[in-house]
């Protein structure tokens, strides 16, 4: 009983690896490293693909083709015909729009821009959320009341309603400005999430142990609590990127947002505005839509993957 080696023995029977199929063993090996998760890997690859499009596109393609009249207007992609029976040329492999902009150049510049708005808005929102959530949960009292009520009120306000009014009155704005405006609507859910976690962690044994050890409030918040929140923060961050991109694209498709910088939403707005649907110019709205889908599927897969990483019960044998 007092033998230390004996005390280390687990109380349950030891696992047995015999009698498993090769396939099961292989799947099990994967669980040794939870980050080695297929969903996560696929999601990250899809997003990296968008970033790579932006980087390599700038190296190998002329981004000046995004300007009006740079190429022949209304051309179909290579191997397809437009309504006038002109076959698309290799000089504009994804076709062109009615104003003579090259679609490939538009995507190379626009797709990373959309991602940038989403990531920046989410980063600002998360930072606000972490700060407010920790303050509310750890301080409590009147401060908590103010933060809780204001985030609850903000959550009920439809962001698009406000943003349409604000952006319409601003006129032309930059991408960063737009991200900041969207960030004003994505801090509420991380605030609530972190506040709830901090409230329960504040009473936990290890926080009490840290207080016994004479730890400062800052040490408890950032060294004891924050590391345990990382899975939640990641998940919340990715969900917020999705929300921010949806909001940004929504505004752009309405013709709001940056007027002079190509974004995926802006391309779709132009396509709708120039009746691309009735003129059968499917490439004009189709390619940006596909890229947006890739982006959202990538984000969704990352979120599902992170969920499995932080919650081992979701992993299946």
């Amino acid at each position, binding site marked *: 009983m007092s033998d*230390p080696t004996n005390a280390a023995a687990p109380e349950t*029977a030891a696992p047995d690896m015999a009698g498993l199929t090769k396939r099961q063993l292989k799947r099990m090996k994967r669980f040794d490293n939870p980050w080695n998760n297929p969903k996560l890997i696929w999601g990250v690859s899809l997003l990296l693909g968008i970033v790579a499009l932006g980087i390599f596109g700038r190296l190998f393609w002329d981004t000046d083709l995004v300007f009006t009249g740079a190429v022949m207007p209304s051309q179909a992609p290579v191997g397809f015909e437009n309504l006038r029976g002109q076959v698309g040329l290799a000089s504009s492999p994804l076709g062109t729009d009615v104003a003579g902009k090259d679609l490939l150049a538009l995507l190379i510049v626009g797709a990373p821009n959309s991602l940038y708005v989403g990531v920046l808005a989410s980063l600002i929102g998360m930072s606000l959320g972490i700060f407010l959530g920790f303050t509310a949960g750890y301080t409590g009292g009147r401060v908590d009341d103010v933060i809780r009520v204001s985030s609850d009120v903000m959550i009920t306000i439809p962001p698009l309603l406000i943003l349409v009014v604000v952006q319409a009155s601003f006129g032309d704005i930059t991408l960063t400005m737009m991200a900041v405006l969207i960030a004003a609507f994505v801090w509420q859910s991380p605030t609530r999430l972190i506040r709830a976690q901090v409230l329960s962690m504040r009473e936990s044994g*290890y926080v009490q142990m*840290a207080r*016994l050890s*004479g*730890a400062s409030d800052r040490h408890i918040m950032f060294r004891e609590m924050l590391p345990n929140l990382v899975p939640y923060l990641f998940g919340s961050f990715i969900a917020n990127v999705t929300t921010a991109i949806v909001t940004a694209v929504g505004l752009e498709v309405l013709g709001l947002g940056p007027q002079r910088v190509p974004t995926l939403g802006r391309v779709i707005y132009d396509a709708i505005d120039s009746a691309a649907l009735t003129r059968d110019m499917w490439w004009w709205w189709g390619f940006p839509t596909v890229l947006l889908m890739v982006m959202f599927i990538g984000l969704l897969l990352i979120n599902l993957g992170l969920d499995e990483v932080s919650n081992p019960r979701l*992993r299946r044998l």
Partner: protein
Amino acid sequence: MSILDIKNIHIDFPTSKGVVHAVTDVTLSVEKGRRIGFIGESGSGKTTTALAAMRMLANPGFVASGEVHLNSLDGDTNVLHLDEEGMRRVRLRKISYIPQGAMNSLNPVMRVEAQIWDAVVAHEGAMEQAALQARSDAALNGVGLDPRVVGRLYPHELSGGMKQRVCIAIGTCLTPDLIIADEPTSALDVITQRHVMQTLREMQAKIGAGLILIGHDMGLMAQSVDDIAVLKKGVLVEFGPVRKIIEDATHPYTRELISSVPLVGGESFLQAQAAPPKGEALDVPLLELDGVSKVYGSVTALHPMSFALDGEEPKIISIVGQSGSGKSTMGSLMLGFNDPTGGQVRFKGDDINAMNAAERLEFRKQVQAVFQDPYACFNPFYRVNHALKFPFENFGMQGDVDAAMREACEAVGLDPGLVLGRYPHQLSGGQRQRLIVARALMLSPKLLIADEPVSMVDASLRATILANIHDLKDKHGISIIYITHDLATAYHVSDYVMVLYHGHVVEAGPPTEVIGDPQHAYTRLLIDSIPWPDLDRDWGDAGDARAALDKLAEIGGTPETVYRGDIPGFTLRQG
């Protein structure tokens, strides 16, 4: 005639680390009207074996091989061959289950009687309202609850003991062949535990069913069952009549389980020490409570009380009481985690709630604690070293941290190479709690507050950890406040005991007086309710338990304090 035969059953759990054989080759039979106890530590497979009979194994567990025969079934008696619908009809009607947490197993939005009707209708089909009412009235009467009052209540309006008795009523309303009770009293205090267990025994004897009682407390088993099955790591190591097991166990593990239950007046599990080292002599008491009280809203958790603890001669003061007696409130007041509503807590003469940052750090360095839950005490993000290293460095202590950690681990009987550098989830509960004791030792405080340090640790390790804590006093001169609900351990480790009831001290004095020969009605009741692992010391029947609860109600809110003598260096007064 046996009602349930389990034959050579193997139960496997495929996990990400390989297949865990939770139960290996267990064979046993339950006779009609017989009570069987399944005893073992957490993870020993006792619940898993019992649940296999109901086919209610937790995912992803499955019965790999073996047979479970329920002999009252027609035709094929193997329950593992039944289809879902057949199994549904067996559950509750043939085999009923009384769960561990009655709080979570009743439907919160249904009246108690309606939950009994649900069970009856599900198995016997729709019937007249009057007939249903008669059934629920009979079931509630059987467990000693007034059907006209309790039947109309919702679960949140009942106490824990009443909820557990409602579960017994539901479990017995269809007169099943077999009742499986999974630690039915683990969340209840000893007084209520006795009442619930007596009710369960009474009902089981009335309907003549078999009973499987799952538990880890040898004392409770001795008082409640006819046969005991001892499981260890999924293997049935011993099975036999309770008297034979208790008095003449053959397997060393069984003997260890029995000896791990400390007895009042029995042999001590501690080794006597020579004179313990002295603490520093001060003009003021080490810790002083001066008229301290604590009120939460309309509830008074602690009535004004005062005591002074002199640190020169290290001693262990036990604070004993049931849940809600205010003992943990006292602990957090002494640690300065909570502000007292009235009075002052003084450490070496300074009010601990009026200290500046530097004084507070010094106070923290000198007053340490061991908490109840060893699983929560380590930050899952860090290796266990963090919990030991951080305070050492934060308090600016001299010396080599790693050497100090290794030394402290060895002092509490842990192999430093085995536990240091691991993550908390890789260690067992006992190892973690010993590490917390090692942490306290490393910081060498003047005072240690141990709040239920062993209540969540497996029985076989409790004595070891208490011995470690006792060593802190004997070998290192640390005074200890030991907060517990367990009178038997308090009897052995402490120099002075105070019994708390509803925030009042009802009896206080040296343990041989207070626990060995209790005078106050409440202390006596507590001691009578302890289930002794001694067959000749009977627990009494349900009538006794009911009378005891009535007596407890009479004591009411403002009991008298009985002082049973003093020890040098400690003074206590209520008010």
